[in-house]
C-alpha cells in the first residue's frame, strides 16, 4: 500500500496465500454453538503459575489483573501466545511482554464486543473474499476457541494445553493454524489467525494497553516508539534511538 505500508500487505497476503484463513470467517453464521460445546471436557486444574506475576521490573503492576478471562483461560492464552512468540536468549517472548493481559483487556472493551463492526442480520456463509460473516463477537470466539484448544489437547495428549511440553503445544497450534482440527463451533485457523494478530498487537502497541511491558517489545527491534520528529535523522544511515511512549506526552 503505497500509502500504507507495503510490508504489512505483503505479510497478510502471504497468510491468505498459505490459506491460513480457509473459510470466509472465523465462525459459521447461525450455528448452534451450545450443542458442540456440550461435549467440552471439563477444565482441569492447571499446574504451574505462568504469566501471572510479571510486573514492570519486578514492581507490582496494578494493570496485570483480569477483566475478561477466567484465570484458567488466561493461562491458556498466556501459554499459546508464548509459543507464537517464544522467549529466547536474545529477546523476551509474549508472556514476559504481557501479551495475555493485553488480550484480556482488549476483549473486555469495544474490540471484544465488535462495537464498530457491522453486525446486522441476516448472516450467511460467504466466500473467503467477502471476509468475516459470523454473528459471534470476538470475546465469544475467544471463549470458545480456548475451550476447543483444551479439548483438542486432551484428545491428542490427554492433558490440558498448559500442561503440555512446548513442542506438543506447537503441534496443537499447528493443527489449528492449518485447519487439521475439525471444529463445528469456530474455524480453527480463523481463531488461530485472530490469536496471532492480537499477539502482534500486544507485543508492539503502546505499553498503555498492557502489553509491550517497559517498551521491551519496541526495544528488541530497535523501534523508537512515538518520537515527535525524525527530521534530523531522515537523511542519515541507521540509528538506534531510545524509545518513548505516550506516557511521555502527558
Amino acid at each position, binding site marked *: 500500500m503505497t500509502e500504507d505500508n507495503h510490508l504489512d500487505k505483503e505479510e497478510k497476503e*502471504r497468510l491468505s496465500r498459505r490459506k491460513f484463513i480457509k473459510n470466509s470467517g472465523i465462525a459459521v453464521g447461525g450455528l448452534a454453538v451450545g450443542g458442540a460445546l456440550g461435549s467440552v471436557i471439563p477444565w482441569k486444574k492447571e499446574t504451574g503459575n505462568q504469566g501471572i506475576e510479571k510486573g514492570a521490573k519486578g514492581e507490582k503492576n496494578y494493570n496485570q489483573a483480569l477483566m475478561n478471562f477466567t484465570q484458567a483461560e488466561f493461562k491458556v492464552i498466556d501459554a499459546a501466545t508464548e509459543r507464537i512468540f517464544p522467549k529466547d536468549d536474545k529477546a523476551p517472548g509474549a508472556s514476559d511482554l504481557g501479551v495475555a493481559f493485553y488480550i484480556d483487556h482488549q476483549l473486555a472493551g469495544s474490540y471484544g464486543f465488535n462495537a464498530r463492526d457491522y453486525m446486522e442480520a441476516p448472516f450467511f456463509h460467504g466466500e473467503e473474499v467477502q471476509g468475516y460473516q459470523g454473528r459471534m463477537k470476538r470475546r465469544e470466539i475467544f471463549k470458545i476457541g480456548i475451550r476447543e484448544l483444551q479439548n483438542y489437547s486432551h484428545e491428542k495428549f490427554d492433558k490440558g494445553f498448559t500442561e503440555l511440553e512446548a513442542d506438543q503445544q506447537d503441534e496443537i497450534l499447528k493443527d489449528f493454524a492449518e485447519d487439521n482440527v475439525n471444529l463445528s463451533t469456530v474455524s480453527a485457523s480463523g481463531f488461530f489467525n485472530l490469536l496471532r494478530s492480537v499477539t502482534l498487537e500486544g507485543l508492539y502497541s503502546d505499553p498503555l494497553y498492557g502489553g509491550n511491558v517497559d517498551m521491551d517489545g519496541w526495544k528488541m*527491534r530497535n523501534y523508537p516508539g512515538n518520537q515527535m520528529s525524525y527530521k534530523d535523522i531522515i537523511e542519515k544511515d541507521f540509528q538506534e534511538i531510545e524509545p518513548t511512549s505516550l506516557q511521555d506526552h502527558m
Partner: protein
Amino acid sequence: MAKKLPKVDVVIAGVGWAGGIIAAELTKKGLNVVGLERGEERNTEDYFMVHDELRYAIRGELFQDLSKETITFRSNEKMRALPMRQYGSFLLGSGLGGAGVHWNGQTFRFLPYDFEIRSQTIDRYGKDKIPADMTIQDWGITYDELEPYFDTFEKMAGISGEENPLGPKRSDKYPTGPMLQSPQMKLFKKAAEKLGYHPYTIPSANLSEAYENPDGISRAACEYCSFCERFGCEYGAKADPVVTVIPVAKKTGKFDLRTHSWVRRVLHKDGKATGVLYTDVTTGEEIEQPADMVVLTSYVFNNVKLLLNSDIGRPYDSATGKGSIGKNYAYQVEKGDATGYFKNKKFNNFAGAGALGMTLDDFNGDNFDHSDLNFIHGGYLAMGQTGARPIQNNPIPAGSPTWGKEFKENSLNYINQTLSVYGMGASMPYQHHYLDLDPIYKDTFGDPLIRMTYDFKEQDRELAKFTAKKSREILEEMGADHIDSMDELGPYNITTYQSTHNTGGVIMGADPDTSAVNNYLQMWDMENLFVVGASAFAHNSGYNPTGTVGALAYRAAEGMLKYSKDGGLLA
C-alpha cells in the same frame, strides 16, 4: 414531519476535501453555504495523543463507524452480496475533513492520456485493443483544460515536489521544494537511473518547508514523524481540509457548518433539486434544508447511494450497459509489488512521512508501447517511506513460518533491512462492475446500503505481473540479496488493505447518454445538482486520486458560481 429550515443558496452533503474546497470557493464569492457533515468536528489539538498505532492505524479511530453504515460486496452478479463487516481493502473517512485528515498526501495529476483514454488507445493500437466488456470512455475534458485547476489545488495545499521528467506540461512549478531524501530513496533513485528510468520525488502534501498559501493560510513544515497515513497531523503540516480550506470558508461568515448531520435524501421537484433531508444524529430529528443548489461531496459510495435513494438520474443497468448512476466502478491494482531483503544494509525504516518516497512514470499511462502487452495503461512504480510501524510491519521471506521461533528471529532481523517497491496500477471499468442498492442490508436509519460488484480481470492480472516484475528488477539493481515478488494477483479480496482509491459511479463525460455529470460535475438530469469527487472518474489512473479530485472540485466550484448567475446547463 421533518422540521423545515429557511432556504439558503447552497447546501453541501459531506465536508471532506471536495466539500471543503467548494465551501471555501463559494463563500469567498458571497454565497451562503450550509455544510452538512455526518461526523464530528476536528482540530489539530485532537492529535496530541495521536502517535498510537493500535488506536488509529489498527482500530481505525478516525474512520467511518461500520456498525452504522457499510457497503456490501460480491465478486460477480451470480453471488450473494454480503456486508463488509470489518475494515480491509479500503478505509472510509468520516468527520470534518473526511479521509483528507488521515490520508498520506501523495498528490499527483492524472495524465493527458487518461482524459482521452478511449480515443488515444484506438488511435495508437486500433479498436481491437479494447476488450468488448471494457467500458473506458473519454472524460469530456482534456488535461490542458484541467491544468489551471491542478495548479490551484497544488498552491492551496502547498504541494512539495520536483519536476517529473516524464510529466505533462505545467503552468508553474510546485509551490514548495521536494521532501528530504533518505538513503533508501537515494538508493532507489540511483538504481532507477541506471536502468534508464526517470525517477523523481513523490509530490507531497506533507510540507517540505513552512508555507503560506494564496488564501493566507500558514502551515509548519513536516517533521517526518511517521504517524501520517491513518492519523491526523498534530503539526498541521499535512494538507488537510481542516487546516486549509475549511478555515477560509469559516472566515467569510457565510459558512454554516453543521456536524453530526447525516444527509439521507436529495429532495427534488419537477426535475430540480429543492434541498436535502438530513438526520441530526445526536437527537434523531429529521430536518429539511432547502437550497437553490445542492452539492454531493460524500465520497464515491455515498454520492451514488444518495442519488439512488433519492430517485435521481438513470440507474445503471449492467445487462444493457444503459443508464449511468453506479456505472464504471473501478479501483486500483496495487498488489504488483516486490520486497527486497538486504543482508548487510540497515535503514531507518521506522522514520518517514505519508508522502515520502521516490517514484517514476516510465510505465504509467501510455508512456510505453503496449503493442505486445495484454493490457492497457500502467502505473507508477515507487518506493514509499511512510514509517514502518511495528504491529503492521513484520516482513519475513515468503514460505518461512508465520509464527514461532523462526518467525520471531526473521521478523526482528529483517525489519530494518527490507525495502518494498510497488506499482500503483490503473484500473479499467467493465460492463459488469458497478454500484447499486443492496436488496437486503440497511444502514442505521434503514436506508439500503450500496452494493459493489467487482473483481479483478485479465487486464489487472497482466498489469500486476508486469509491475511486480519491474519492481523486482529495480530491487535487484538496488542490491537486494533476496527478493520476493507477487506472482499471481488472485481474486479481489475485500479483507486485505490495498488502497482507498475507489472511483466511478457518477461519471463525467461529454454525452448525457453515457455519463451522469458534465465536465463541471453538474448532473445532466438535474441542473442545480452537482456531484463531486472520484465518483466522477470514468476509470482510475495509475496514480493516487486526490490531486485530480481537488482539480475537479475547483472546476466544479467555478461551474456553480456560473450557474448561480446564469443558470442552465454549463456544458
